[in-house]
């Protein structure tokens, strides 16, 4: 199925039959009336679909904010669940307009795969989860362990690097489907499960038979800046994705929320007025409606609201803001000036 899909996508590249490549992405989205986002196949807090097919999660809401900014309606977002292996070919071939799929920004992915990354929407790091009964307190004690991991991820490479650096041995169990990897781990086929720490927290809460039987080890073995990605060669589209993310962060910094955004239209702060379109100009520069940021914040919320609702204190995951706090709160979230 996966290989078939990959083959299909490769064929599309060969035959030049990917229509999305023909014109700028924005025109295609306006014509179709929908923004198509590649999301994960099911990761609590980032993208999960319920029984009615409604998606929730941080990645999902970032995508909805694009739909709100471009089409004026957050509901005009379509989600394509993609496995770790499918995601890049799906973006290359134009099957999706943008990847909002907990994807780590790396040099090779920008330079070799032909992508551009928008600003980071979640700063993550790779960790390990083990069963409590193993009595392992540190990742340094994992010598000889079997580790469950998904193929084709930076996780898989970091894992090999970490064990190499620490002169330890390990056996990977590599399975593409997230559900299968998690099942294998909880069935005891692997001693440890490794992925981004947010993912570990999500898996522990939502998939473990008894979450308290499992612990996430303290080591963070890599930097995993998760960011939306677009194809190279369409700067207009890159600018939109980039500045919508900045607007969400900037809105939090300026105290603009989904609840007070209407009052904020009459704010005295010139940057808020520029952002929300009370002072026109910014929307035109992006080839969007002047209400682009207003719609995104009004219909989805600012970055802080999105974070807390999906992965933060209002969610089952209960992650701290940590490095994902605003720069003014000693975090890394820093939006470039909207002017």
């Amino acid at each position: 199925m996966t290989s078939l899909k990959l083959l299909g996508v490769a064929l599309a590249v060969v035959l030049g039959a990917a229509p999305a490549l023909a014109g700028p992405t924005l025109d295609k989205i306006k014509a179709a009336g929908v923004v198509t986002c590649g999301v994960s196949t099911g990761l609590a807090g980032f993208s999960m679909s319920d029984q009615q097919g409604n998606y929730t999660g941080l990645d999902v809401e970032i995508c909805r904010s694009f739909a709100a900014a471009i089409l004026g309606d957050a509901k005009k977002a379509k989600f394509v669940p993609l496995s770790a292996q499918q995601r890049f070919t799906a973006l290359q071939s134009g099957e999706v307009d943008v990847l909002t799929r907990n994807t780590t920004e790396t040099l090779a992915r920008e330079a070799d795969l032909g992508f551009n990354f928008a600003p980071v929407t979640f700063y993550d790091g790779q960790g390990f989860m083990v069963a409590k009964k193993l009595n392992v307190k540190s990742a340094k004690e994992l010598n000889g362990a079997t580790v469950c991991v998904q193929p084709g991820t930076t996780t898989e490479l970091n894992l090999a690097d970490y064990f190499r650096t620490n002169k330890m041995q390990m056996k990977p169990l590599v399975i593409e489907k997230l559900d299968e990897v998690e099942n294998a781990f909880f069935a005891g086929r692997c001693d440890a499960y490794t992925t981004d720490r947010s993912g570990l927290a999500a898996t522990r809460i939502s998939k473990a038979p008894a979450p308290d039987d499992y612990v996430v080890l303290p080591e963070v073995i890599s930097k995993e800046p998760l960011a939306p990605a677009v194809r190279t060669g369409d700067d207009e589209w890159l600018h939109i994705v980039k500045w919508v993310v900045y607007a969400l962060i900037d809105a939090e910094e300026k105290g603009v929320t989904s609840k007070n955004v209407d009052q904020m239209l009459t704010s005295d702060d010139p940057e808020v007025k520029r952002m929300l379109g009370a002072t026109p100009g910014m929307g035109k520069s992006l080839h969007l409606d002047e209400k682009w940021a207003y719609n995104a914040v009004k219909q989805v919320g600012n970055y802080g609201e999105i974070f807390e609702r999906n992965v933060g204190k209002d969610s089952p995951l209960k992650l701290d803001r940590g490095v994902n706090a605003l720069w003014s709160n000693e975090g890394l979230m820093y939006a470039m000036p909207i002017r």
Partner: protein
Amino acid sequence: MAVDVRGSLRGAALGGTWWRDPRVRSLGYQIGSVAIVTALVAYFAHNASVNMARQGIASGFGFLDREAGFEISTALIPYSPADTYGRALLVGLLNTLVVAAVGCVLTTIFGVLLGIARLSSNWLLRQVTLWYVEIFRNTPLLLQLVVWWDLLRISAPGPRDAWQILPNIFVSNRGLAYPVPVWHEAHIWMLVAMLIGICLTILVARWARQRQERTGEQFHTILAGIGLVVLPPLAVFLAAGAPLDLDKPALAGFNFQGGVIISPEFAALLFGLVANTSAFVAEIVRSGIQAVSWGQTEAAGALGLRQGQVLRLVVLPQAIRVIIPPMTSEYLSLTKNSSLAVGIGFADFVSVANTEMNQTGQAIEVITILMAVYLTISLAISAAMNVYNKYMALVER
């Protein structure tokens, strides 16, 4: 030259022109087809390279020399993440070849037994094999693989509570761990002794057959053969002072270390492929046996041959000519089906190639390699089976 002249003369004689000559026409059609196919391939290749260049996607096979950076759990040759993508592919290819080779041998043995059992005069045996064949032929292979895998994974305990089924042989959800002898130079002399025993057995068998043809007296070739193959190595072994150190598996940390460990993924893949393919082989063998007319069996019985001898000396040698061609397809499908390993986490060729495709983003190159390799393996199997088929075919005079 002379042929050309005659050909055109004939064309002229028939009142036609050169394009009516069937040889010229057939040559023309062939050149035309090749030209069209070549043009299509060239068009697609050009299209792909232009598209990829425009999107800034890397291309070419240079990535094979770059460091792979990922670990592979099952490797027959030394491999570390510091090795190249090319070597990682080789590791995956060897894993695939091992599964395919072991799978084909086991499938042949199991399938032939099943096929014979399908025709047994024993009602129970016949029914059991009938149900076996119908169940395994009529459910998807991937489903069967996942079931085998889950069975092995869930029913077995963790490594710390592993079952010791025999001394030093452990079963856990990490696989089957068993000891292997540590290499000693006496072992090579044991091998030599065994080879000599095998040669002697062949000579004895030839002598016994000639004597039987001459006098009608039979000789216990099998017993003599077992004695000749087993006893000399045993004598060498004892003479050398029984040097047998075992590399025993022992729980060290998380997993078993030492000995040989067969992973549940490999076992599930092998069981699944063998169980599934032998159901098809059983039907091929059954049809092959039934293609030999019943009169042959009756005639052999009338000559006083026992049931086993009838099968071995009369029926199977004739049936095998019917069996070989469809068996080739079964070997081919077993080999290709081994790529379903991806679904259960065994590091076969496709699994490694998929990982590389994603780490490098070079889908077209990797898929080209995949197709070329499977094509080569399949053609090699086909060629070998064709040679065997020719060897076994009825020599008509």
